[in-house]
């Protein structure tokens, strides 16, 4: 069995599972945020009316809560949602609630690794599609809707069809000017936004072994854009060290068997990879940066679970050091822990000196909700994950997705720019 099959077999109490088996998997961790939480509360209200008991959660110690989409509260409705969420965690005895304005908080997927909320080998579900991110720690991490999350909160398990696995092998390191974001965009361009649908996307090979844990998180994060059920990387000592340094204990690794089977294997040569962008209006609409359209950009955005981890900010700082931005540029570290490290290591000064506005962690602008949405006809280059019509604001705005290196280089020139071409 491959790693995903082994995790799901263990979680469903079976010796063995095969693709297309339908199982009920016991869940180890579950996350809700300020969008899915109120959604779950609404489901609970409906269930109560149907006479279903919702007085107790199956295990409040396995539940954690983030405030990320609409913080700082965008308006009265989102402020009410935060109050609802706080009452929910209080009433159900959930202790792990990362609150805006009270120390560590941030985007849920970023907290999943920054706070070691999820361990290798675990089944982790969350009320958000980018829950896939956390598979980079060697866990089965999958996004679900409100009804499914409500079911998990009450029953501790959920049904899955065991997915087929696509294996993406990266031979050799990526060049310095190429980031994990470029590689995952390349893959989505090759297999399409439907190419991973219902499947596992597993990443391996010497290039993935060389990658930092944060880069692997970027890879798994955007498996969602290919429609995948989960993204995963087999855990190694780097993952153990990463989690241990964040306070995790009792880590045990699950890895695939030597005779693990995959539906299809794709191979890539690290040295051949180029900086890429995804043009409007789909993450599969890929172009090499040096061949991208010569559009006048209005904004550069470095934020989100995809593109505002510490190493993403470091990459942006490398480009922005001693330079000035030519267009509106916003950098929003994905968690307070990352924000703080960026401050301690001088990154914030580099950003502010370059003319960038640095904001608090939030999903706001990435999903076109608040905190910097785009006007009609505005064009943005962004380290986020989606560029469907209206994703980051007005339905007639446009978003180009890129790595932090490219977004920072483009901020300096006002055009889509390969970092190697900066003077």
């Amino acid at each position, binding site marked *: 069995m491959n790693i995903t099959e082994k995790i799901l077999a263990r979680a469903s109490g079976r010796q063995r599972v095969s693709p297309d088996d*339908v199982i*009920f998997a016991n869940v180890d961790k579950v996350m809700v945020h300020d*969008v*899915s939480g*109120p*959604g779950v*509360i*609404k*489901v609970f209200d409906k*269930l109560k009316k*149907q006479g*279903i008991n919702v007085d107790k959660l199956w295990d409040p110690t396995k539940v954690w809560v983030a405030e990320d*989409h*609409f913080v700082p509260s*965008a*308006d009265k*409705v*989102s402020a009410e*949602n935060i109050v609802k969420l706080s009452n929910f965690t209080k009433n159900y005895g959930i202790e792990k609630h990362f609150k805006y304005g009270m120390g560590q908080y941030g985007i849920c997927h970023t907290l999943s690794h920054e706070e070691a909320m999820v361990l290798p080998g675990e089944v982790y579900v969350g*009320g*958000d*599609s980018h*829950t896939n991110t956390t598979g980079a720690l060697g866990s089965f991490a999958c*996004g*679900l*809707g*409100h*009804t*499914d999350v409500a*079911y998990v909160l009450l029953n501790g398990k959920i*049904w899955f*069809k065991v997915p087929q696995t696509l294996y993406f092998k990266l031979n050799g390191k990526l060049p310095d000017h190429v980031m994990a974001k470029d590689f995952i965009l390349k893959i989505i361009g090759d297999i399409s*936004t*439907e190419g991973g*649908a*219902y499947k596992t996307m597993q990443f391996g090979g010497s290039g993935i072994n060389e990658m930092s844990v944060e880069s692997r998180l970027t890879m798994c994060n955007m498996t969602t854009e290919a*429609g995948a*059920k989960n993204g995963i990387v087999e855990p190694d000592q780097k993952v153990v060290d990463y989690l241990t340094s964040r306070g995790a204990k009792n880590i045990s690794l699950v890895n695939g068997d030597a005779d693990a089977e995959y539906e299809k294997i794709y191979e890539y040569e690290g040295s051949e990879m180029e900086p890429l962008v995804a043009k409007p209006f*789909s993450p599969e609409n890929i172009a090499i940066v040096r061949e991208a359209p010569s559009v006048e950009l209005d904004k550069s955005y470095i934020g989100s679970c995809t593109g505002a981890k510490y190493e993403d900010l470091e990459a942006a700082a490398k480009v922005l050091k001693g330079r000035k931005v030519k267009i509106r540029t916003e950098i929003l570290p994905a968690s307070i822990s990352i924000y703080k490290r960026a401050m301690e290591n001088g990154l914030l000064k580099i950003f502010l000196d370059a003319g960038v506005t640095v904001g608090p962690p939030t999903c706001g602008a990435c*999903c*076109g*909700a*608040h905190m910097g*949405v785009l006007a009609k006809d505005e064009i943005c280059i962004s380290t986020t994950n*989606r560029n*469907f*019509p*209206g*994703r980051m604001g007005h*339905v007639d705005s446009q978003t180009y997705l890129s790595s932090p290196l490219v977004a920072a280089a483009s901020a300096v020139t006002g055009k889509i720019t390969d970092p190697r071409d900066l003077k």
Partner: protein
Amino acid sequence: MKGNVIKYARDNIDTDVIIPGQYLKVHDYAELATHAMEGLDPDFHSKVKEGDFILSGRNFGCGSSREHAPIALSHSGIKAVLALSFARIFYRNAVDGAFLLPIEIDQDAYSDISEGDQIDIDIKANQINNLTKNKTYKMKPFSEIIGKIIEAGGLFKYKPD
């Protein structure tokens, strides 16, 4: 199950156009319905009628896990979405929450059924009858678990064996 078809002849209708991100804070189902399909078809809310179906291409509902998407469609009156294929979370949410039926159709049905056609979906026979054009198409049968959850009326009413 009879109804009239609203057709969007394109692939990859994503959750950002089904219900734009700015409405994720809204959990009032009736209010969500007023913004359904706003990112693609601002007239949707005024033209949709109770019992209508949406017909579309590949990868319907791709994007986010927002349950707001099937909720907004269902509370607009949509009883089923017929598409060449579905994104997995939209499909799961539609079935597990018992909001609407996600029905996989073939190219023949997709090309042949027009906006405004009245169709009758016969789940037992895995068949779609086009009453306007007097034609019949196959639909892909639901997998065993999906069929059982639909029959039970959603995940919470489903009793695993």
